[in-house]
């Protein structure tokens, strides 16, 4: 079920294993017989047209939704029963919405990464240290007491990464994190993700910019209700999976880098 079906040659247990999953909203199927493995330390780019079920698949991978049929296992447990929340860092598509209005400082947001370790009671020295280190690691220590709404889009995204780092998460999942972020900050942001990935953090990224994905990801899954491709970026560019997934009348966003 693992290496054979995906054609990957890595060894070891996958971090996430999706086996023949189908998911419907009411009567409408959003995902059909999708099987995919996420290996520890990989950088998986999820691509596909709007409404292709990428966000739904991400929800399933993280155990936030349960499939209608098929199984999802996360860190070796059924995904919906998995309860070590601190191992998952998740930046949802609308995550920065509240950050644009709410009075909340950078440090307060990064501290949320420690919440799964300690939802009640006082923070320990280790908690505080993890927060400081996370701020340091993404280079926002000097912004710590600033209100998040006063930051630029690029800085704000770093705050969310720092939150996952403070949590000491093993898995970072991001759903189109750089919408509305200027090109230069985007590049810096993806370099940071790339760097964190090389230090062992597993990354799952939903991104509409194919160029970003093929540059930084180690694996690509191309989706439009069904899985059109799952493999490494160079093979992906050689196949016609993208064109088939998008259909002929779809506009494919491909920036040159």
């Amino acid at each position: 079920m693992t290496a054979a079906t995906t054609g990957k040659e890595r060894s070891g247990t996958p971090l996430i294993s999706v086996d023949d999953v189908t998911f419907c909203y009411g009567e409408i199927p959003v995902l059909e017989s999708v099987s995919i493995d996420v290996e520890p330390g990989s950088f998986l780019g999820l691509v596909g047209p709007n409404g292709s079920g990428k966000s739904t698949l991400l929800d399933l991978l993280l155990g936030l939704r349960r499939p209608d049929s098929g199984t999802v296992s996360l860190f070796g447990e059924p995904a919906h029963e998995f309860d070590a929340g601190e191992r998952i860092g998740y930046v949802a598509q609308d995550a920065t919405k509240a950050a644009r209005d709410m009075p909340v400082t950078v440090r307060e947001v990064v501290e949320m990464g420690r919440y799964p370790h300690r939802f009640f009671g006082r923070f320990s020295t280790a908690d505080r240290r993890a927060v400081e280190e996370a701020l340091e690691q993404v280079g926002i220590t000097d912004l710590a007491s600033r209100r998040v709404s006063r930051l630029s889009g690029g800085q704000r995204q770093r705050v969310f990464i720092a939150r996952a780092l403070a949590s000491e998460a093993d898995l970072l999942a991001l759903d189109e994190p750089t919408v509305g972020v200027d090109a230069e900050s985007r590049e810096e942001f993806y370099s940071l993700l790339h760097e964190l990935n090389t230090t062992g953090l597993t990354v799952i990224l939903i991104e509409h910019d194919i160029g970003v994905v093929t540059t930084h990801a180690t694996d690509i899954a191309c989706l439009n209700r069904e899985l059109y491709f799952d493999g490494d970026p160079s093979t992906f560019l050689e196949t016609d999976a993208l064109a088939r997934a998008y259909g002929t009348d779809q506009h494919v966003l491909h920036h040159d880098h």
Partner: protein
Amino acid sequence: MIQPTFIDTGVPFGGATAVLWIGGILIDGVEWFLAHVFGAAMDVVADLLGTPMLEYPYMQRAYLAAVCIALTGPVVGTFLVHREMAMISDTLAHTAFAGVAVGLFLNSALSLTLSPLFTAFVVAVVTALLVELLVEHAGAYNDTSLAIVLTGGFAVGSILITATDGGIAVGIDAYLFGSLATVSTENVGILMLMSILVGSLVTYAYRPLLYVTFDASAARAARLNVRLYKRLMVVLTALVVVSAMQIMGVILVAAMLVVPVAAAAQVAQSFKQSILLAILAAEFAAIAGVTLSYTYGIAAGGSIVVVAIAVYVVALGFQKLSHRLPNVGQLRSQQPDQTRDGLEADGGERK
């Protein structure tokens, strides 16, 4: 399918009798507190300031009640406003009015002696949980359904009141617009109890509540029971709204959960600071409002709200000014490329 989930979270049902019983004991405590601690202190203040109104027991009760409302309102309101569901406090206030009417109607029809405040608590908490269950099904807050519940609650209330025999319409004004003179020792006791309850629950569950408010998706991925805390939030809102209704009035009570919070959001940096500033703004509005109300013989609820809005306007002005004056907006001018972004972000707040 809805029923069992509902009973699981039905906080008020099992605890209702216990609350009443504890309430009875508390009233004695509150009476003692009002007479010997708060009352005595107010007498001293009255002497010092030369203001005899502070010596009247009913004014002492009014001040204490206002102080409690100005604490609980913003504490709960801060979470509501930043989840963009300020509307729910208004909705629950209007259904609480139906609760009052239910109490009066039952008393008249079945010759019971229920406290209308008690039925208001029950109806508001039940509505809060029902609305939350609807939201869980629909996946989003919906203005239209809240408007239906709000007007529906008020409609049922007005029908029950006109269907009830006797002169019960007499007391209705006090519920609609609030009143200082009708604040009883019992009301003050309930308010103090609510302040302690809401204050300690929010302090205890601060992190889960903040996480759910700021980023519910991430909170869920972190395996937090998001539904539980959302339900806790609406139940707390119902409790705060009903206990504050007596002074503020059904129509104006929501302002206490919204206006001071909006004022604080203009100037606060951190979330903790915003709660603190909202409480300060609300306390100022409450004390000034009650004083104005007594001095000029005008409505207390209205006076409090008008002062609160004045505070909001001042905060708004201060915030706008801080963008114009470079020395006030020091932080933002450090990096030139952020000034524009900061302004954009703030533009979002002002709408």
